[in-house]
């Protein structure tokens, strides 16, 4: 059928088919096939806890590939889990408060302290395969990525405008159609941005945990993290720099090849009634759009899959009656619900009892050590936040008020935030050892490396968002510098600053676990801190200490969130909202 397309967007883009693009796509498909096969071979071989790591630069691509696969698997698992979790939480009012509370707590627990028990469990679960150790590491990255994705999806679902939900009901959409035509598109933008943050966190953890020691057992998986670690241990500076360069290259490539096209593409899902003038552009996306295969093939395949689904769904009862939106909650819960609930309560109760027994083995000196560590880490995390804010606020404001500069710096800040600080840590350590400094300062520096970019990114965004007429008013009335800052700039960037600080604070706590304790060339560097306690406990296989330290760190994070960040957030939303 020939359609007239006077206003079609698709006509704006010239539809040439650069031949090499399609070739490239075909090559990618072949490469993917090979990659899957070789990964499978590697995973199912006999477990080699300590895979020997070569320091040769030629081995680097292979290591980068292994790390990438781990990352990708973990990310897609997280995405799938997050979507299911958010969906169930949003549509089951009975379990909703529970699931959200779980989300809230789990996202404040530093992932890295999970490492040892998870490894033991996974190795026990899949004995006799390399897969067990791999799964442990993947699971760990997964737990670091999944919660903010789940939360983003959940809150998107909760903010779908009522009339759109009603439209989907009155036109008798199936759950399938609602998911693809309403829920997913509505959540897309939030998911993309949270994916960027999640994957950055994933790299941070991955670099750290490809090599680790637990009791007398060492584990080492082939990958970029192990490569960097091994280069550090053997003092091979060339290899170390090459490893770091590879990490940065991957991050930049991900940004250019994946995130920017995704951001540009997701603009289509913006839920605003007018077309916005400013859009992220992505040459890669344009290129993909011009490839005829990619443009029509997925759509056609998808239609083949979807059409039978719709035909089938239309005949089910779900699609024949209009289901009310306010189905009464008082409906009896199915017995299965109670069975599951009881099972969960019993399991949790039993596990909590076991944990209590375990905790009772902790001695008073141990406890004192932990409390001191908690105080030290608390101070360190907040010091790093303060230092970050102290330089990023003036810098960010200066950049943000200069739009051409901001357009260059902001994407850079976004990339910097995605470069895992853990990759730089070895250099920092070597430097510290040389000048004889301790980890007390080193760990603050490491936290800074990871956290300041989030704040910078947000402050720039905040300064850019200050309405220009307000700026003009302030120059019209000849505000002094002090007045300009206190009346205009600080209130203007406040909500953004808080957003950045919340993200940064989560990152800093997570970083503390690895920043306070480290092995360099057979030496162990450590300082007082909760993170150091967690690591030392891991090293020596003391699970009681590990458990208590994790509980303490989580408690502090949750308390800080509740008492400080959430309140500041609310304040930012009510009092300091600049309406343009």
């Amino acid at each position: 059928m020939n359609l007239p397309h006077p206003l079609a967007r698709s006509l704006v883009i010239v539809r040439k088919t650069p031949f090499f693009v399609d070739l490239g796509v075909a090559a990618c498909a072949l490469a993917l096939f090979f990659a899957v096969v070789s990964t499978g071979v590697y995973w199912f071989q006999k477990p080699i806890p300590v895979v020997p790591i070569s320091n040769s630069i030629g081995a680097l691509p292979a290591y980068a590939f292994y790390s990438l696969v781990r990352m990708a698997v973990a990310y897609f698992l997280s995405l799938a889990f997050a979507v299911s979790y958010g969906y169930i939480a949003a549509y089951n009012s009975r379990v909703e408060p529970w699931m959200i509370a779980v989300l809230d707590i789990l996202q404040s627990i530093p992932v890295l302290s999970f490492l040892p028990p998870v490894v033991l469990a996974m190795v026990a679960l899949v004995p006799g395969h390399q897969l067990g150790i791999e799964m442990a590491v993947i699971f760990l990255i997964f737990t670091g990525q999944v919660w903010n994705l789940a939360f983003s999806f959940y809150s998107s679902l909760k903010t779908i405008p009522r009339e759109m939900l009603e439209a989907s009901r009155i036109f008798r959409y199936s759950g399938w159609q609602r998911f693809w035509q309403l829920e997913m598109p509505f959540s897309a933008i939030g998911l993309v941005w949270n994916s960027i943050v999640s994957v950055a966190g994933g790299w941070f953890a991955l670099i750290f945990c490809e090599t680790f020691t637990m009791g007398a057992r060492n584990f080492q998986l082939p990958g970029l993290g192990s490569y960097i670690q091994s280069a550090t241990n053997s003092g091979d500076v060339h290899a170390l720099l090459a490893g770091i360069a590879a990490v940065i290259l991957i991050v930049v490539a991900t940004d250019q090849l994946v995130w920017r096209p995704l951001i540009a593409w997701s603009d289509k899902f913006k839920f605003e009634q007018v077309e916005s003038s400013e859009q992220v552009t992505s040459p890669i996306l344009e290129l993909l759009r011009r490839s005829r295969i990619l443009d029509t093939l997925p759509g056609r395949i998808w239609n083949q899959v979807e059409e039978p689904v719709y035909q089938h769904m239309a005949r089910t009862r779900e699609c024949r009656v209009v289901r009310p939106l306010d189905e009464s909650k008082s409906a009896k819960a199915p017995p299965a619900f109670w069975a599951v609930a009881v099972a969960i309560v019993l399991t949790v109760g039993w596990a909590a009892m076991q944990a209590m027994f375990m905790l009772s083995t902790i001695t008073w000196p141990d406890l004192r050590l932990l409390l001191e560590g908690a105080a030290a880490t608390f101070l360190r995390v907040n010091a790093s936040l303060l230092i970050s804010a102290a330089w990023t606020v003036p810098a960010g404001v200066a950049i943000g008020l200069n739009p051409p500069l901001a357009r260059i710096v902001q994407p850079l800040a976004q990339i910097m935030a995605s470069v895992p600080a853990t990759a730089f840590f070895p250099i920092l350590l070597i430097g510290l050892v040389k000048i004889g400094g301790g980890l007390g300062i080193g760990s603050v520096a490491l936290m800074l490396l990871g956290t300041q970019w989030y704040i910078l990114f947000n402050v720039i965004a905040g300064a850019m968002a200050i309405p220009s007429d307000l700026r003009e008013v302030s120059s019209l009335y000849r505000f002094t510098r002090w007045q300009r800052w206190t009346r205009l700039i600080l209130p203007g960037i406040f909500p953004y600053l808080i957003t950045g600080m919340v993200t940064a604070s989560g990152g800093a706590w997570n970083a503390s676990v690895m920043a306070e304790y480290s092995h360099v060339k057979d030496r162990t560097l450590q300082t007082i801190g909760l993170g150091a306690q967690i690591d030392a406990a891991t090293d020596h296989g003391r699970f009681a200490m590990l458990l208590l330290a994790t509980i303490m760190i989580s408690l502090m994070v949750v308390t800080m969130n509740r008492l400080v960040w959430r309140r500041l957030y609310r304040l930012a939303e009510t009092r300091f909202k600049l309406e343009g």
Partner: protein
Amino acid sequence: MQEMAIPNATLEAPPAADAIIRAQKVEKYYAQPSQNRIQVISATDLSIVPGEILALLGPSGSGKSTMLRMLTGLSTPTAGEVYWHGTPISQAEINVSIVFQSFALFPWLTVLENVEAPLQARGVPPAERRERSMKMIDVVGLDGFEAAYPKELSGGMRQRVGFARALVVEPEVLFMDEPFSALDVLTAENLRSELLELWTKKTMPTKAVFLVTHNIEEAVLLADRIVVLGRNPGHIRTDFALQLPQPRDRKSEAFTHLVDYIYKVLTQPDVAPAEAPGQPAEPRTRDQRQMRYQMLPHARPGGIAGMLELLLDRGGRDDMYRLADDLAFEIDDLLPIVDAAQMLGFLKIEEGDAAITPSGEVFANSEILRQKELFRNAAVENVLLLRQIRRALDAKSDHTVPEDFFLDMLDEQFSEEESQRQLETAVTWGRYAELFDFDSARRRFVMPDALEEEIASTGDAK
């Protein structure tokens, strides 16, 4: 005008078997966070019969949308039952569509995809889907815009997409929830007449239309039957058939008489409509002793003053309908202002006319500072909530009271959202009258600045 308006048409309504949708004693309560339930609709019967455009008219918050949702099966009545051709609606395969106030289009789908989506849900094969959608897009006059995205279209064109999407499934009843109120006057007028044309020429196989509106003229222009809803809780005030032939002339005497009549019904919420003498008394489910607070109309003091000044220019008395027309106001804009002036004792409604009272005259003739003072006195005298806030402030030693204190009391009577709005209006009035101020950061009522300084200085003197 009695010859046009036949009241109590429901009493001689066709037998229930003829009704497409029949609501039987439906009631709706909404749960409040504070364990209370607010009744939004009191037991109501309503039928939608083939061949008519039914307009449901009422002030905002009277439960029109709630009623529509119950009749379409989107919302389950707390009590009572809705039937679709005699079967309970939750079990029937109903065929209705809704045109929404906000359009509710999916911005990520093109016009064509938006219109195709309901057919897709019904399992119509792709080729037929496309053909039917294209035809419907043609019918609503969007030929050539199939591949555009909604955000590239004007408001009127978006609502055309809304109509195309609603009509493409050939609904038996077409529901509309204030479909024209988000559009500008001219666009709305165009769309209305096109809709009427589709309906009278039977271009659409739709058997009945149910239109929710707060625009009296729109209802009189389109409807074959008008049901007026009163609020707190929602109940039917009158229900009558219109016998004006189409096309209707806004200027004709019959038309203006009808509009006048409805104005009168709406502005006198406590008086039983004159044309419905035989109607059994409404069962008032709400305990009158609980109704401590008047519902503050959401009007600005400046608007009240402006309206009174205009009225005074007209010799102190004018027809409500003309007043609205001259101000180019819709009823929903004028009603709160009139309500407010009435509540403050500045205005009286007599026979559909607004008449200024002596105190209103003094108010309208004064300069601004004096107006504030008069407003303050009238407010303290007539408005319980304002009086209470001021008393509480006077009584407390620090002269501040948290917002929640009053919200809790209002929550007993209004929905959560309405309580919030009541307080917002109270703040607007209180600030204007310099009765009190509101600190939005601390969410507390405080004494106005001038008074605070006074208190501070007397405190120092001691």
